[in-house]
Every structure is written in C-alpha cells, then in structure tokens.
C-alpha cells in the first residue's frame, strides 16, 4: 500500500513538473541579461529586469497589449450581445430548422481559418480595415460568435420554464423576457463564456498575422512571434521570454481564479453527448 502511494505521488509530481517547467524556465530566462542568456543555469547570478524595460522601450509592446485588449474586448462584447438573443431563440423556442441551425453554428466554429482567408482579405480591404483593429474584430467573430451562441444556448435551456410562463402571463413579450427576466440570471454564464471567448481572441494568431502589417498595429501573439533584435540573425530571446511572461501571468491568474467556471464552460461548449 505504501509503495503504491509513493509511485502515485511521484507520478503526480512528474506531471506537475512537466506542466510547470517550461513557464518557470521562461521566467528564469527573462531575468538573464546580456551574455548570461547563453549559459544554462537554474537561477541567474545577476538577475536583471533589463529585458522587461526593453520590450516597452525598444519594442512597441505596450501598444501591442493595447491592440489585443481592444480587439478582444470589442469582439467579446459584440459576440455576447448577438449570442444572448440567438441563444434565447435556439434554446427556448421550438421551430422548424432549429437543429440544422445549431449544426451550422457548430460547423462554423470548426472551420479551418485559412479557408476564409482570401475571402476575408478581400472583405477587409474593401471595408478599408487593413492594418486596423477593425479587421481583427471582424475576423475573430468567426470563432467567438459560434462558441458564445453554443454555450449560452445550452445554458438558456436549463433555465426554469416557470419563470418565462409567469412573465408571459404578466404580458411580457420575448424581448422583455430575455432582457429583464433571463439576463439578470445569466451573470455567471456570461462571465465564463466571455472569459473563454476573450482568451481565444487574445491568443489568435493567423488573422492577426495576415491583416496587420506594421509593428504598431500588431497584437501580442504576432509581436511575440515576430520580435526581432538589433541584428536579423540574432533573436532577442530574453525579450521574447519577458514579453511571454508579461502576457501569460494575467492569463494564468484569471484561469486559476475562475477554474471551476472555466471547466464547466468548456464542457458545455464541447461535450454534450
């Protein structure tokens, strides 16, 4: 019995180390300045915040964070607004074609993004949004909208029928029912869904890479992927790791804080078997 416990504990420790080590190593690397970067040591002998200063002084990383924040917030607000209405219709009203519509919504969320790239490029250029945040808000809707619709639909369906009937007896129309009766109950669901959609938009790479051109217009993932140093052949690894740590710490914080909600939101979005 004792041996089994030890084996088990070792396995758990191994998994934890495997999950955490890369990020820990990124933190260690980000604190190494100059040539310290090129020695493998578990903790820098002269830890320095020079890399953190550099990403905000030498690189437009502050601007990149702002771009990501604006694009992700706008697309989440837009998606939630559209999805609440759609979720009421899909979750609570019986009508012909409802199953097909849900299937289409799910299908869109499974789209390979590269499949809409040329059509979207044309649209973005036609709307004059190239190299602007608007192009990202537009393209991110492809995955945030189906996701929010799907999750909120499963949530709407669970709300008690009596609430709606009581409101109908009082003469409330569908719009009043959604905004006055259901919406106040949906705070937690909206927060969890919004957070997951926000993370997805924050992490998006392909569209942001394609629809932005200048350093100032880039989002965080594109900036981290394309960050270059003084010479073309030498990647500024210290700065890349510093930037990675800066954007990942808040994400990890949020995820750990909302653990339970995220897990239930994920499963509502993915598994309804």
């Amino acid at each position, binding site marked *: 019995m004792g041996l089994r416990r030890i084996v088990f504990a070792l396995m758990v420790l191994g998994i934890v180390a495997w999950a955490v080590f890369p990020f820990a190593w990124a933190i260690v690397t980000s604190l190494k300045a100059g040539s310290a970067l090129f020695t493998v040591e578990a903790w820098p002998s002269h830890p320095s915040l020079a890399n953190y200063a550099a990403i905000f002084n030498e690189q437009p990383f502050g601007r990149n964070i702002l771009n990501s924040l604006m694009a992700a917030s706008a697309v989440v607000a837009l998606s939630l607004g559209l999805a609440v209405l759609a979720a009421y219709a899909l979750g609570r009203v019986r009508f012909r074609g409802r199953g097909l519509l849900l299937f289409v919504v799910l299908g869109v969320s499974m*789209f390979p993004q590269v499949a809409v790239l040329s059509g979207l490029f044309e649209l973005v250029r036609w709307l004059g949004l190239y190299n602007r945040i608007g192009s990202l808000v537009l393209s991110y809707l492809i995955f945030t909208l189906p996701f929010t619709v799907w999750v909120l639909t499963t949530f709407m369906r669970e709300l008690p029928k009596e609430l709606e009937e009581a409101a109908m007896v009082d003469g409330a129309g569908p719009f009043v029912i959604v905004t006055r009766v259901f919406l106040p109950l949906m705070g937690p669901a909206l927060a969890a869904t919004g957070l997951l959609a926000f993370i997805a938009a924050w992490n998006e*790479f392909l569209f942001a890479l394609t629809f932005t051109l200048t350093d100032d217009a880039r989002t965080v993932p594109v900036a981290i992927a394309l960050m270059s140093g003084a010479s073309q052949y030498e990647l500024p690894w210290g700065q890349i790791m510093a930037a990675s740590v800066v954007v990942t710490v808040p994400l990890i914080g949020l*995820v750990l804080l909302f653990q339970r909600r995220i897990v239930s939101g994920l499963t509502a979005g993915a598994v309804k078997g």
Partner: protein
Amino acid sequence: MSGLPHSSLERQRRRAAWLFLLPMLIVLAGVAGWPLVRTVFFSFTDATLATLDSFQGVGVDNYLWLVRDPVWWRAVWNTLVFTVVSVGIETALGLGIALILNAHLPGRGLLRAAVLIPWAIPTVVSAQMWGWMFHDLYGVVNAILMGLGLIAEPRAWTADPDLALPVVIAVDVWKSTPFMALLILAALQMLPRDLYEAARVDGVHPVKVFVRITLPLIRPALMVAVLFRTLDALRVFDLMYVLTGNSRSTMSMSVYARQYLIDFQDVGYGSAAATLLVLVLAVATVLAVTLGRVRVDAGR
C-alpha cells in the same frame, strides 16, 4: 405552455425567435459564409493578392498543379502524422491524468491547477518557450540530455528534418493534453457512484472495472473530445509557423495554403489548397460521425 392562449402567443414567440436570430445569422454569413464562398470561387481563377478584382477563370488548373506538387503531399502527410500521433498521445495521457484527478487523493488541487497552466498559455507563447528550450546552442533540453549522458553532442532539434516534426508534436501534446484531461474528467464525474460500489463489493479487479465499466460509459464524451481535437489538429498553423517557419519538414496544410495566399500572393492556387483542407475536414467529420458514431447534440 398549458393554460395560456397559446396559438397566437406561440406564433408571436416563433416570429420573435427568427428576429433574434437574424443579427447573428447575418454576421455569420458575412464573416464566414461569404468569405468561404469567395475562397472556393477564387480557387478556380488566377487571382493574385494585388489583382483581387481582375482575374480570369482557369478551370481546375490550380487543383491539377496542386496534386502534382510533392511539397503539397508532404504537407498533407505532415498534417496527418501530426494529427494522428498528437491526438493519440493526448487522449492516452489525458485519460491518465483525468483518472488521477478523479481519484480523491491529496495534491489533487495542485495537479488540476498545474495542468491548467499549459492550457492558459497562448500557443504562440508556448511555441516560443519550447523553441528556446530546444535551442541548438543554448537550449536547456540539450544541456539536460547531455548532462544525463543520453546524447553525446547537442542536437539541432527544430532544424533537423527528422526531429522537427516530433518536436512540434511534443509541444502540442504539452499544450493540449490538459484540454483532453479536463473534458474526460467532466465525463468521469458524471458516472454513477453506486456502480463502482457494487464492483468493489464484488471484488472486481480495478483494471477490469476500468475496461468494462468506465471506458464504455465515458465513450460518447471521449469520442466528442477526440473529434474536436482532431478537427483542431488538422487545421494546425501557429505551432509550425512559429517553431519552424515555412520549413518543409513540418509544414502543415494550413501553413502551405497561407504561404501561397499571402507570401507568394497567389490567391487562386492558395485558395485551391485551402478548399482541399476544408474537404479533408469534412471527410474526417463524416467518418467520425458515421464510423465512430459520435453524437454532437445540443438540439435536444
């Protein structure tokens, strides 16, 4: 709806439903439907990025060039290998981690928090982190393996054509296993407890319990999770692009299509590649739904 004058009310509700759906449907048609139609359309033309408004139809020429390009087939092969191997490992590992998380043991909270970290890290960031760890000169992976005496000299992990794809797969396993584990854990937690009580009382071996009871019961949820991860893996782009650029040894179908669309500005040819990728995904979905009997159901 009993007790209400429902016929007219129902009609009103149904009308409102369509009204509520309309904005969402218009947006989806605009950002997904229309661009997809344009991509398929472009795949039969010689359009370039600079001349998106003046082009000529070329029939199926783009597709004929595509099937004759060994680099394309390499991309197809890379994508399939990546998908099968990484989803396979992720399912097995995810199942293991989910079982550990589901057994009420000390340290469970720590484990759950720890596996959420890779999931929370943006793909691009994890690709860069691992890219640095696998660095040929200063990477910690080489240092550790040489310290342990497992390799005699440093390896160029991401540049070596034989090692690059395994490295990409390893990074994906690290990043995506938590998702699998969480989905499987959710399924495990819904299983009826009394069944296990009965098996325990009867003295059934734990392995047998797992194979005979647990696995069949979580199969539907497991299949959905595998389908989602498979579709996700088939369209992979970020990992390859950041870790190995446009290198042929790891290039996925998405990387190939984007390279022609944007870097070479050949919209017609790139669109043909993108269209074929959609077809591959569609076939995979149909196969999963018919052969694997995956039920994706929210309409109930």
